[in-house]
């Protein structure tokens, strides 16, 4: 369906460069901030204008841009929100007077894909999907289509969002984040509603060709709705697909986030799993945000390749033999849902 040749991730855990996942890094004041590396590859003249979302996205993508790509596909719910709020503040503070345009230009969600195109001189397909909790999944679907349409080409696809004061305050008001409480190591022991805020950028180099691939996407389902039977229907539909049929799911990577309102969805999916399918979670590592599923995709690729599942991720079961298939299920606010199945690539013949 789609082959992953390279991947890179900047997240609140040491995922960048040489990933070390065994030791969980703690949240600060109910937030999981991305660990930013030194951005040696970004020209200072361009770096100075970038907000965090743009910076971490480009930082994560640059190692994958050494070889030419035919296009850039980004999923982000909010893009450079912090710039957006800076510009908004100017409008109010200076009463629509003389304003600096830099924040405005950086606040458009497509600034990320555009800057990536600019830095890598990429004149190909350049698109930004912004469908909130399904931004990354829609970007993946786009990648599936475009690699079918251009089987010879490699593409960059990724998901990114930042913690912005804007988004954080609004999500707190709406009850999606807890602004105080327990740290991320106890995320799943919380009772009640709300999760931890998080951020991250995960980038993938993909193509339709299995040659040299490190992981593959074997199935994807994207849907919306609030009823549990839809989740069941989509999952059984996915498992019955020809590419999936008969494959054993070794690991379910669940997007459980400590918010009691989301548990029924995750429980429904867990119940569907075979007895020997291990269940792992990741939101204590990343926090909750609209494109957290992109980090899950990165984790799935990483786990398939390295076969190291840190204890703090495991919820249930044991991984006895090699992990060959990982199913990721994630819901954003119980309204937007996705299943993504990642598998070891078939050995090249």
């Amino acid at each position: 369906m789609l082959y992953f040749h390279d991947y890179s991730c900047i997240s609140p855990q040491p995922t960048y460069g040489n990933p070390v996942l065994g030791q969980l890094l703690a949240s600060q004041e109910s937030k999981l901030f991305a660990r930013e590396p030194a951005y040696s590859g970004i020209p200072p003249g361009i770096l100075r204008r970038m907000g965090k979302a743009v910076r971490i996205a480009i930082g994560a993508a640059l190692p994958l841009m050494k070889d030419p790509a035919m296009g850039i596909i980004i999923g982000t719910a909010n893009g450079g929100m912090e710039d957006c709020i800076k510009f908004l503040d100017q409008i109010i503070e200076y009463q629509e007077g003389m304003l600096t345009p830099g924040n405005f230009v950086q606040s458009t969600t497509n600034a990320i894909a555009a800057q990536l195109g600019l830095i890598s001189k990429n004149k190909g397909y350049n698109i930004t999907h912004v469908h909130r909790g399904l931004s990354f999944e829609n970007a993946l679907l786009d990648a599936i289509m475009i690699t079918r349409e251009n089987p010879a080409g490699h593409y960059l696809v990724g998901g990114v969002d930042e913690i912005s004061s804007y988004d954080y305050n609004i999500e707190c008001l709406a009850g999606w984040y807890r602004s105080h409480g327990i740290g991320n190591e106890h995320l799943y022991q919380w009772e009640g509603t709300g999760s931890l805020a998080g951020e991250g950028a995960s980038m993938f180099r993909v193509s339709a060709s299995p040659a040299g691939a490190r992981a593959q996407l074997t199935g994807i389902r994207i849907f919306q709705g609030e009823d549990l039977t839809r989740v069941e229907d989509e999952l059984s539909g996915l498992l019955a697909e020809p590419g999936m049929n008969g494959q054993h799911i070794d690991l379910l990577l669940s997007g459980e986030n400590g918010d009691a309102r989301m548990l029924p969805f995750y429980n429904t999916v867990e119940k569907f799993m075979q007895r020997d399918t291990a269940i792992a979670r990741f939101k204590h590592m990343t926090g909750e945000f609209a494109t957290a599923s992109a980090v899950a995709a990165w984790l799935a690729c990483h786990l398939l390749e390295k076969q190291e599942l840190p204890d703090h991720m495991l919820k249930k079961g044991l991984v006895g033999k090699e992990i060959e298939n990982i199913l990721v299920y994630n819901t954003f606010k119980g309204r937007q849902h996705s299943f993504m199945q990642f598998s070891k690539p078939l050995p090249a013949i």
Partner: protein
Amino acid sequence: METAELKQVLKKQIVEFLNLLSVKPEDIRDDEPLFGEGLGLDSIDSIELIVLLNREYGINIQDPKEGRKVLVDINTMVDYIEKHRTK
């Protein structure tokens, strides 16, 4: 304010306002071109600098041609500020 002091203040303001990460205020020469090969600023920066002149010195430049004449280097900017500042 003495011209020399104004130059130092302005350099600091430019570095901060444009977030010039790798530039120290004292490294900017008074006659170094702001745009093109010198500091390497671009058209968005030129608008940002006009806003800086407005907020810090109460100078209102409407005509972009006027802006191009003022925003050549530190010398031309300071010269203009000294003649036109309202605060």
